[in-house]
């Protein structure tokens, strides 16, 4: 039986808004299709495991972010290689920012990211908080909840994850949300994002499985009626 190895980056420091739900969604949707799943929680000072099929990292508060920055930079090359090879990856909020080029704090200090996603983030004057709906060419309508003060700008060649329908997105200005590079998605969408957007969860699973067995063309369908209902309820809630 195929085993999928999921890497959960810094669950202690970077897990503000129920991101555990993202891991659980990947795990269950794989198990329901007969795959075995192994989740490794990666903490500061650990060694990265040998097998990594999917990478996930969540958001954290400022204190959490400052605890992991150095450790993340120490593993930048390994993570970059994995992404370049096509490893599917989802990073939300805080780790989305740190997967970019830099984060500039309110007092002008630049914290270097690991430069995987071509984005730059600058601390903003207020928090952008509320329900958000975006449109993505690959995944259609995506719903979530955002809560961030960092304002992110994409480099000219970069591809956003989606276009903002309602909410703020990357910066509340240019209607872009997140970034998409190879199979790596960075986004501000909490919610958590995967349970109510099963297409996105299945994209990560399919890419991971295809890297193990190129003959796999698609995943067995699941009954997603509750997922899609919760999605449509969320899309209609006030900001």
């Amino acid at each position, binding site marked *: 039986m195929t085993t999928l190895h999921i890497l959960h980056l810094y*669950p202690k420091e970077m*897990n503000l*808004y129920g991101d555990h739900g993202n891991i*659980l969604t990947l795990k269950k949707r794989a198990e329901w299709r007969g795959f075995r799943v192994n989740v490794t*929680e990666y903490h500061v000072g650990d060694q990265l495991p040998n097998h990594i099929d999917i990478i996930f990292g969540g958001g954290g508060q400022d204190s959490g972010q400052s605890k992991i920055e150095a450790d993340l930079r120490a593993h930048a090359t390994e993570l970059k290689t994995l992404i370049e090879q096509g490893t599917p990856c989802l990073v939300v909020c805080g780790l989305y920012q740190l997967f970019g080029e830099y984060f500039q704090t309110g007092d002008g200090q630049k914290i270097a990211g690991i430069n995987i996603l071509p984005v730059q983030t600058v601390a903003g004057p207020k928090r952008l908080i*509320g329900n958000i709906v975006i449109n993505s060419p690959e995944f259609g309508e995506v719903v979530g*909840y955002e809560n961030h003060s960092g304002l992110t700008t994409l480099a000219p060649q970069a591809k956003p994850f989606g276009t903002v329908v309602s909410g703020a997105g990357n910066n509340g200005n240019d209607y872009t949300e997140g970034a998409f590079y190879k199979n790596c998605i960075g986004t501000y969408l*909490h919610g958590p994002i995967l349970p109510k957007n099963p297409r996105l969860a299945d994209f990560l699973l399919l890419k991971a499985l295809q890297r193990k067995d190129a003959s796999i063309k698609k995943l067995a369908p699941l009954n997603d009626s*509750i997922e899609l*209902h919760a999605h449509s309820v969320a899309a209609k809630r006030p900001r």
Partner: protein
Amino acid sequence: MEKFSIILGKTVQKITKLRGNGGSALPGLVVERSNPQFLKKTLGRLPRGVVVISGTNGKTTTTKIVSELLEKQGLKVFTNKSGSNFVRGVISAILGDIKLNGSFDYDIAVLELDEAHAVKFCEVCPIDYSLILNVQRDQLDRFGEIDHTAELLQKVAKQTRQTCVLNREDPRVQKLTAKNTVFFGLSSKLQDAFPSDDDLLSKTSKNKTKAPTATVCLQSLDGQTAVYKINQKDYRCQLALKGIYNAFNAAGALALCHSILPKAPASTLIEQLGGITSAFGRGESLHFGDQTIELLLVKNPSAFQLSLTSFADKDHDYMIAINDKVADGRDVSWLWNVDFLRLPRVKVASGSRATDMALRLKYDEIDVDTVEEDLATALKIFSASSDRPKRIFATYTAMLEIRKIISGKSIL
């Protein structure tokens, strides 16, 4: 000036009441604006001072426990009703009680204030005692980040003139500093039942520091029989309160009362604690037709987790009601930080985010019989589903709404 404020405030109160707006904070607002010293002057006259109870979970029931314990020791206690836990709400509550001649016949004020309002309160009125229960994730759309919440509570602790009572088992609360601190805690045996906010996030990482001595420690809890260690001596107490978190918060209440009245014998406090019940919506039993339904407020992952630890069994049927109004928090992602595996199954998921709840349960592979957003319809389905005893877990506004439907009238 004081007399003018009282007359002004009471007049506004009469008018708002006539207009059917009983719980309005408007009278408080009018007085707060016209006489900023009113609160400080009125509460500053109380011989035993002002007590503030704050933290994320358990404020309402703990305030009730402290107030009743002090009353049983013979003190006249002024307290604010739940829902008026901000500065002008406290002023409104005072206006309801103060005499026109300015006489305010109480010994001590025991006030429930949430973290942000507790800081604002301290800025306008000195406080003598404080009890800080915990810092958990609650309404992140309002407070932003929990480290920020801890900073707010640090300000409250710093401003406390006499004694600040702290929860030893919450890492963010334990490290608060004040002029004089006293701790309440749990025996090592019970500590695992209480996940701190950090424990909820990761199962493979724990860092425990050496703990200070607790003045009052919850040693064990068997059903509703609790053993408290007070100053190194064990006391058994048959509680009317249900749930491990209430038993633990009672330890904080005991430590606080012991600080305020050091001469009150521990055995007397323990005996009186036994007769105190929880606040509304916090485990109270309601009658709906010929059925008894227990209503349990769940505002955030830690409260929900603790409630499940105490109240998830195979002898009850369950309904869960999740609203996402501003008072509940618009963000419902916290549901994914709760582990529901203790629940046998759920009869009805309800509230504006009923489907989010059903979805969450699906990923813990727990069956949900009915998803019905409308609470009144959901209650009908739930009560008609069986004759078994029932429990409802509900967010704040869902709890108020359910109570209103069951009792047939508004409570606030």
